């Protein structure tokens, strides 16, 4: 299998805080790769660097062999890497359908002049909505399509965020705690969706998660991060059996 995302010795310091301190990883195409580590290990900062929200101080990030470190978030998304956020950042004052219809790339109506090419805009809106409606149905959000995003439950907002990210038609999705705040049922559903999207659409996932049942069930391989550095990597069994990991993370 080919590597789709590769980080090589990435550094990101904030003053004296070494948030990411020479971290490296490789994400295989069509894998669901896990990234775990105690709070403050630098997982979210690493996501932010990979998605272009922060510039790396040093180190390379390759997406499909192309250097993306230092590009803007919108440019990185256009290339096929989309991320979600730890605290679901729904666009609250917009409806669910507006949230998901925002995401598709290269819409004709996305420029002030394109907005007046009536026929094409209408046609594209219809097509995009067909796609979005199908996804929303799978995610169980279709009934809420005309609700404001701020009125959804925490778990529903997570689902909305994933749906929206998928609407950007990415090749790899970086999910920052996709089940945080979700109920047990919602968590199961989100896990099932991630696996289904990998199997059916060939998507690749990089998942930061604290819930062990999520990580151990769907992720392989798993990277463990500690103090901004690599601590371990392996399949779920290796990680559970790894003494160092248990000390810093799994609670001895």
């Amino acid at each position: 299998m080919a590597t789709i995302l590769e980080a090589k010795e990435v550094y990101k310091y904030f003053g004296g805080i070494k948030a990411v301190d020479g971290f490296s990883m490789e994400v295989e195409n069509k894998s669901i790769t896990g990234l775990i580590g105690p709070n403050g290990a630098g997982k979210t900062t690493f996501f932010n660097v990979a998605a272009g929200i922060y510039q790396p101080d040093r180190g390379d990030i390759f997406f499909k062999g192309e250097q993306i470190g230092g590009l803007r978030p919108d440019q990185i998304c256009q290339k096929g890497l989309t991320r979600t956020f730890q605290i679901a950042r729904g666009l609250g004052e917009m409806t669910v359908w507006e949230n998901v219809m925002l995401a598709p790339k290269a819409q004709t109506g996305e420029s002030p002049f394109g907005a007046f090419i009536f026929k094409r805009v209408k046609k594209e809106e219809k097509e995009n909505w067909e796609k979005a409606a199908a996804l929303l149905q799978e995610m169980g959000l279709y009934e809420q399509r005309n609700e404001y995003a701020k009125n959804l439950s925490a778990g529903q907002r997570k689902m909305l965020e994933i749906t929206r990210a998928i609407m950007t038609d990415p090749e790899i999705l970086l999910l920052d705690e996709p089940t945080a705040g979700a109920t047990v049922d919602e968590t199961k559903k989100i896990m099932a969706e991630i696996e289904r999207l990998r199997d059916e659409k060939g998507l690749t996932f990089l998942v930061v998660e604290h819930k062990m049942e999520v990580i151990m069930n769907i992720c392989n391989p798993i990277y463990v991060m500690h103090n901004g550095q690599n601590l371990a990597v392996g399949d779920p069994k290796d990680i559970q059996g790894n003494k160092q990991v248990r000390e810093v993370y799994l609670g001895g």
Partner: protein
Amino acid sequence: MEFALTIATIVAIYCILGLALNLQFGYTNLPNFGIAGFFAVGAYTSAILTVPHRFLEMEIFAGFPGGVPGRIEAPFIVGILAATALAGFIAFLIGVPVLRLREDYLAVASIGVAEAIHYIALNELWLTIGSAGIRLIPMPFANRILYFLLVLLVLAIVFYVINRLVRSPFGRIWRATREDETVTASLGKSVFRSRMWAWVIGCAFMGTAGSLWAHYAMAIQPGEFVPTTTFLVWIFVIVGGLRNNKGVLIGALLIIGLFEQGTRFLPAFGAPYVVPALRLIIIGVMLIIFIRFRPQGVIPERAMTIEKHIKTI
């Protein structure tokens, strides 16, 4: 009748300013406190381009060395288009450095820009004649009723264009930018580009309004383009309903029509400055009441269902 026509024309011109501000602040969260400046750019551009040679002769007769106004004598349509374009272009130049900053910096910068424009109008005599202002600006059709209909037509066009943009996929990016820039960027949309367009389009329409004002008043002077104009627009947009274009129209009718202009009927009492001051006080109190009890304005933002959207887009 004459008076009602005056109010209606002024309200319609203010409506354009309000719609432009709503586009910038309501939909994209760009606080523009320099409305008066872009209004002035439009008014002066149109006036300088269209004022007849007769005005220059009068000025020279009065001892003025002469300058640009009165030498071009362009038709109204050139004036209003140039006013729109120049206001937009100046907005673009300002936007390049300023739109990358946070909103609060933009608010401060826009006040500064408006003051700079005010002082240019006051001091660059060759271009603007200075404090005496420009007179004899031609009114198209030379007929108030026909001119009012023209203003209404322009207002309808502006209303349509802004509404269409807000509803389009482009407008979704504006509103997403307003909600959360980081998320918007992470979904592959250029936040800077989206804000720049909202800024330029809004300021350009403020220039359009300025042109309409100059040809209506037929005389303009720097003293008109002061922060009070800016704040009046802010007030009626907030009262009418930020993020709702129909609300903006109602706000303009209410505040500008009833209070700013309608209270000219108030019987004069006390010292000569009491009534005009009272007018501003009434508007101020109204703003406070709205912010306290109905912050969403007369008509709040309304969500559209996807079914209706697909049918009508």
